[in-house]
């Protein structure tokens, strides 16, 4: 395995910020650590970078332990959230910084800096100072600077969250393309689920220092294994088995106490329309028109259910009664929270 985390733990005083994390990252993979603020994702990234010291566990790169190796000897490229360009240096000198520290000969530094500035489309700005650049440009320089010394791993700590929405969108694609082109193993920390889903090969969802679920974006969305993941990524109706018994399809074995279903998977059944499976009925309490879809809040017997309908919707007014079904193939059994 390329990068292995085994029982990685970090405590700050009485608080366990990262709690026994095990993870394997493959060569060339783009993995995202996703979670709310304070979940430990940034600390985990900083442990990998060597900016924090491990309390327990091991981090291995191609089988060799990184242990207490300080950050400057790891050769990992890091891009920080913001303002990490050295203000007293030009763009070119910022990019060259890691190469100068590694004592590259001058003759090799210049072409390398030029190549990287080309890569991030900033060749013309080599002589400018950071404060003369926009936020998005600064982050592209930071990316070039991190990539210049040919790092083993690229670590991105919320690289886009300080930027405007428009710039953020375009940089997402740019970073992802660059990563694919260079084939560099990349770990990105973010609290933005859209960003994680668009960019990453795999997503690791963290909560309170632990891994909730690791998987492809599709896995996390369609089959969340915990209530936390389901509610963090997109919207979710969480149904307790005892209360919703009558509407749930027959399920064998012991699929757990909770079921989740996405609002767009709840199916409205028109009057007189046939349905397979049990049908529930509820009163519309709220209607929100959101452009390409409409979100309804329905109060049914066992509780409240949220429904999203794409396209035109007629006859849904507050106070009306509507019929719906919960298709069995979209119901996912989940572990209750907290564990």
């Amino acid at each position, binding site marked *: 395995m390329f990068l292995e985390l085994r029982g990685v733990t970090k405590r700050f005083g009485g608080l366990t910020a990262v709690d026994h994390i095990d993870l394997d990252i493959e060569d060339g993979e783009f993995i995202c650590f996703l979670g709310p603020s304070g979940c430990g994702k940034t600390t985990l990234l900083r442990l990998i*970078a*060597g*900016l924090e010291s491990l309390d327990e566990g091991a981090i291995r790169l191609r089988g060799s*332990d990184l*242990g*207490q*190796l*300080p*950050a*400057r*000897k*790891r*050769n*990992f*490229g*890091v891009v*920080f*959230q*913001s*303002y*990490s*360009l*050295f*203000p*007293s*240096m030009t763009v070119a000198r910022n990019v060259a*910084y*890691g190469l100068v*520290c*590694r004592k590259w000969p001058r003759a090799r530094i210049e072409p390398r800096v030029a190549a990287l500035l080309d890569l991030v489309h900033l060749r013309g700005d080599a002589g400018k100072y950071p404060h003369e650049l926009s936020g998005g440009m600064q982050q592209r320089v*930071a990316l070039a*600077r*991190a990539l210049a*010394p040919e790092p083993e791993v690229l*670590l991105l700590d919320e690289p886009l969250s300080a930027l405007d929405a428009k710039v953020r969108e375009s940089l997402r694609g740019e970073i992802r393309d660059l990563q694919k082109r260079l084939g560099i193993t990349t770990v990105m920390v973010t609290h933005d689920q859209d960003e994680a889903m668009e960019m990453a090969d795999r997503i690791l969802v963290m909560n309170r220092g632990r891994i909730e679920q690791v998987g492809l974006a599709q896995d996390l969305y369609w089959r969340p294994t915990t209530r936390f993941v389901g509610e963090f990524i997109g919207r979710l109706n969480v149904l307790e088995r005892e209360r919703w018994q009558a509407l749930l399809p027959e399920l064998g074995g012991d699929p757990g106490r909770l079921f989740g279903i996405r609002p767009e998977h709840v199916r409205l059944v028109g009057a007189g329309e046939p349905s397979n499976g049990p049908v529930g009925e509820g009163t519309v309490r709220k209607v929100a028109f959101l452009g390409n879809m409409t979100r309804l809040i329905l109060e049914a017997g066992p509780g409240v259910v949220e429904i999203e309908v794409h396209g035109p919707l007629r006859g849904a007014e507050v106070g009306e009664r509507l019929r719906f079904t919960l298709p069995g193939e979209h119901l996912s059994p989940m572990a209750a929270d907290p564990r």
Partner: protein
Amino acid sequence: MSLADRWSLRRAIDGDRLLLAAIGGGATLLLVVFVILPLWGILSYSLITPEGIGFGNYVRYFSDPRFVSIIGNTFEVSVSVTVATILLAYGFAYALERTRVPFKPLLRIAALLPIFSPSLVQALGLQFLLGRNGLINRTFGTELDIYGFWGIFFADLLYAFPHAFLILSTALAVGDQRLYESAQVLGASAWRTFRTVTLPATRYGLASAVFVVFTIVITDFGNPVVIGGNYSVLAVEIYNQVSGQANFSMGAVIGVLLLFPAALAVGAERWVSRHQHASIGAQSVPLTPRVNRRRDALWLAYCLAMAAALVAIVAVVVYASFVRLWPYDMSLSLRHYAFDVQNGITPLWTSIQVAFVTAGIAVVVVTLAAYANQQLSETWKRPLYFLSILPAAVPGMVLGLGYILAFNDPAHPVYAIYGGLAIIALCNVYHYHAQGFLLATTNMKQISRTFEEASSTLGASRLATLLRVILPIIWPSVLAIGAFFFMRAMVTLSAVIFLITPSTQLAAVSVLYLDDRGALNQAAAFAVCIMATVVGFLLLTQAVLRLAGVRNVSLIR
């Protein structure tokens, strides 16, 4: 130990850790040598009696009514000057920050004037104005006697004024317009608004100013020695005992007595500033005072009166330096600038030399101490921080006497530089270490930690980060710290008066000696040279910063 363990141990002891340990350890060691040893010297010397170790000296001190009355005098003058200075400086700062009085920049310069001169210049100016042969008595035929309590009172009031003004105007500069508008809408009168909004918002600045002024006054030597007459205070008494009677043990006792109130005031000031939090949030609306003609006119009258007093003192000194022979021959002349007395002009050059050496050592020592303080872990930084702040509580006279008692011994390693310029410069560095250290710490805090982390992930060692990333960012503030030390070294009198030798005479001390000998005009001329040097150096530094495009660094503290 297994091979793997040894490998990881060797990696744990890398150059970065060693460098930090060396910087932190070096800074701590220097503080121990140049602050703790002198203090220890004073404390132990005060306990040495002919009958052995004991409190005999203290008993002797407190059974002499003259000594006890000196303690009373010291507190009388310190408390009264503190109250008066705070009231006047608060009013001045209020006028400049909260009203629309005109000429604000000029008034501000007037308020800061005393900072550029040695503390005895105020006393010198008062002599020329109100002394027996002063302008007032000469002109009106009155017989005012300024020597004594009132002389010290006015001189120290003017001397401490700018320090209080700086703290209070910072406190009054920020305000939240919304609070004042709310008070107005709720029908509060101007006085009520002041009591319920302005005063509470500035209470920390006010407390801080009180303690700072108290410390300045109780430890001041220059003004009371010139104008105190028979009204003796502790700082002068320590000098009389040591220089006049070579009574070192009594000097040490007074030193310890002087240490307590100063230490308490500094401790209280630190406590207050720790409990001070930002009262201005991101949503606050900055306060812009509105025009109110009657109010502004009244405040302007007050400010002009205050500024007149501050300017008059300096102006009369400058004037006297050009007068042929005060008060008998008031014709103008340049003869006092010939400096044909004593060592001539040499002390001024010595002072400038000392000031440069002081500034040079101080920027390195103080910047590295602040750097180590920022980088070290909680456990290790605590002793360093304590030692760095400690000198604020040590009056100059006490530190200077401590240097004699600790280092005037051929067996001591520091004796090698004793009697030279270096020991004077080091004494200045550690006398003002706390202020310099706090300035440097503030600068360090402004550098985002991310710069260092980015640098280390790019493969830079600690030294490379310090030299290539941190220094290029903080150099203007480092220069400002250098200017601060230069200024202080030029005007300080208290600590160094014990360390000078005939060959290392300093300008500020020359002013004192000339005044003592009655050569008032020459004393004034020397004082003018000191002020001109300080102002010239500040202007030069300001020009360098402007040329480099730096605008937000303040040189006056």
